[in-house]
């Protein structure tokens, strides 16, 4: 069941990174934390992308997750990592499930646009509401683990990585299930799927909900590892664009891709920002175009080339 190569490597790789993290300097641990937090969201977008759906508004769920952590922290003093993660994933997932009833009827540009619209509505509300921190957002207190407040960030990093492993395993399994296999099928030919006796709407609804839960979790983890949330960097449409960016960068080939992709993205951004404080967007944009043009399969397809044999989904 989880016996396939990918799963094994997810587990091995994850544990290895946890090990590496234990003696890596803080800033590297940070890169991994940010990278892997975001990777959760990418994992969800990957599922959608395989179905031919690209959401230009998943910052909505990313933001919901992050702000759930902030609000629960300020209003109810919730600091436990797992409670926070749960809160984020649940709030976003619930919203995603409800909106899914509408979203599942949309495709292509309309799907992308409707998601954008929804996310911008939230953006507008948060920015204008002082109670929600308006443009400043909130600072988030250090997370505790079962009541213990850790000295360093390492425990949080370990948890994020473990969550990442778990998510990767589940999604990997999902993709091999009938539901999962339907992704490409639906992209290819919805009529046939319906005639085979399967509801395309339901399938897409499930995928959408999964992607929103993951995005919410990602937001929550990101908020915890950063210690800060604000609308500009959590909800605005540019964030959605960023998420899609990383999805394309990673490539849909395998559940490992999002993790590698987001890691590359973090490093790329850190250095771009360090080398050219005024031109880092240019570097990112150029990279993005290059990927779209010369590497449609994303970084993963590159790895496959090195790896030689094509890796079946």
């Amino acid at each position: 069941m989880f016996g396939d190569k990918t799963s094994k490597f997810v587990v091995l790789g994850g544990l290895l990174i946890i090990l590496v993290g234990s003696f890596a300097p803080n800033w590297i641990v940070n890169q991994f934390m940010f990278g892997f937090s975001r990777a959760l969201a990418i994992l969800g977008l990957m599922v959608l992308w395989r179905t031919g759906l690209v959401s230009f508004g998943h910052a909505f769920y990313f933001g919901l997750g992050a702000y759930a952590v902030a609000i629960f922290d300020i209003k109810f003093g919730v600091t436990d990592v797992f409670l926070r993660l749960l809160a984020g994933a649940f709030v976003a997932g619930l919203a995603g499930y409800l909106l899914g009833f509408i979203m599942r009827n949309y495709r292509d540009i309309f799907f992308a646009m409707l998601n954008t619209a929804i996310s911008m509505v939230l953006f507008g509300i948060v920015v204008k509401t002082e109670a929600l921190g308006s443009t400043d957002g909130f600072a988030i207190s250090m997370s505790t683990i079962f009541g213990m407040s850790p000295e360093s960030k390492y425990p949080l990093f370990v948890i994020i990585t473990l969550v990442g492993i778990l998510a990767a395993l589940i999604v990997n399994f999902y993709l091999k299930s009938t539901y999962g296999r339907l992704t490409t099928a639906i992209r290819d030919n919805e009529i046939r799927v319906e005639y085979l006796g399967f509801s395309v709407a339901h399938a897409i609804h499930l995928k959408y909900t999964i992607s929103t839960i993951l995005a919410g979790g990602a937001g929550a983890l990101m908020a915890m590892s950063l210690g800060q949330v604000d609308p500009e960097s959590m909800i605005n449409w540019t964030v959605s664009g960023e998420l899609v960016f990383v999805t394309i960068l990673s490539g849909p080939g395998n559940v490992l891709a999002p993790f590698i992709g987001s890691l590359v993205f973090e490093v790329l951004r850190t250095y771009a920002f360090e080398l050219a404080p005024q031109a880092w967007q240019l570097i990112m944009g150029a990279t993005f175009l290059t990927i779209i043009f010369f590497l449609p399969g994303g970084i993963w397809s590159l790895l496959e080339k090195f790896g030689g044999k094509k890796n079946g989904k």
Partner: protein
Amino acid sequence: MGNSAPILEVRDLLKTFGAVVAAKDINVDIFEGEVVGIIGANGAGKTCFVNMVTGYLAPTEGSIKYSGKELIGLETRKITHAGISRSFQVSQVFHSMTVSENLMIAIAIINNQGLDALRLMDTPEVRSQLDDILSRYKLDIHRDSTVSSLAQGVRKLLDIAMAVVSRPRILLLDEPTSGISVEEKFDFMDIVMGALRDDGVTVLFVEHDMEIVARYVGRVLAFYQGEIIADMPPKKALADKKVQEFVIGKEHHKQKK
């Protein structure tokens, strides 16, 4: 057919698109095990009829009963579950996947409904069913080739094979031989009809080619401007004045061009 109750009962079917009448006063009984040919010029309402029976189009008026059960208002997938399946004039398959992937998805969908769909797709039982279908439809050689790389004929074959995965009791074939070269036609139909006969499926197929009709069909429905102008055995139909004038005449005319 005898006196047993019909498996498909169509009554006073009417379909209009604004002013255009696509189907009118259609009354047909189809009996278990029949092989029925549907002929008619382009736009005579053949495909429209197929679409209505499979729930892809909702009729304006009328009723379609399947072994006593009303089909009107059901979604296509419900009708598939009920036991009616179809193939398409332009083959509707998953072009970016291989033949076996196409069929495996079809099989898996039929096997795991609802939450079962979260089960692994690629299982031994799925595999065995796959091999069975591949061999019966002579698709083994193509099993690992991607659809987009296949010839029309093979796609059509796959299209039909996917339709029968659900083990339908009624199968509607929409112009199965269109786009297939004259030489291959009969081998193709032999494969298909052979396979179907083994399962005792009731078959309705839309066809332009009168030779095919004459060879495989026990009964002909001739459509003209949305109405059935003839419902009789093929020999009689091909001789029929109205049919010759409104259907075959045009057909021959068309084929000459």
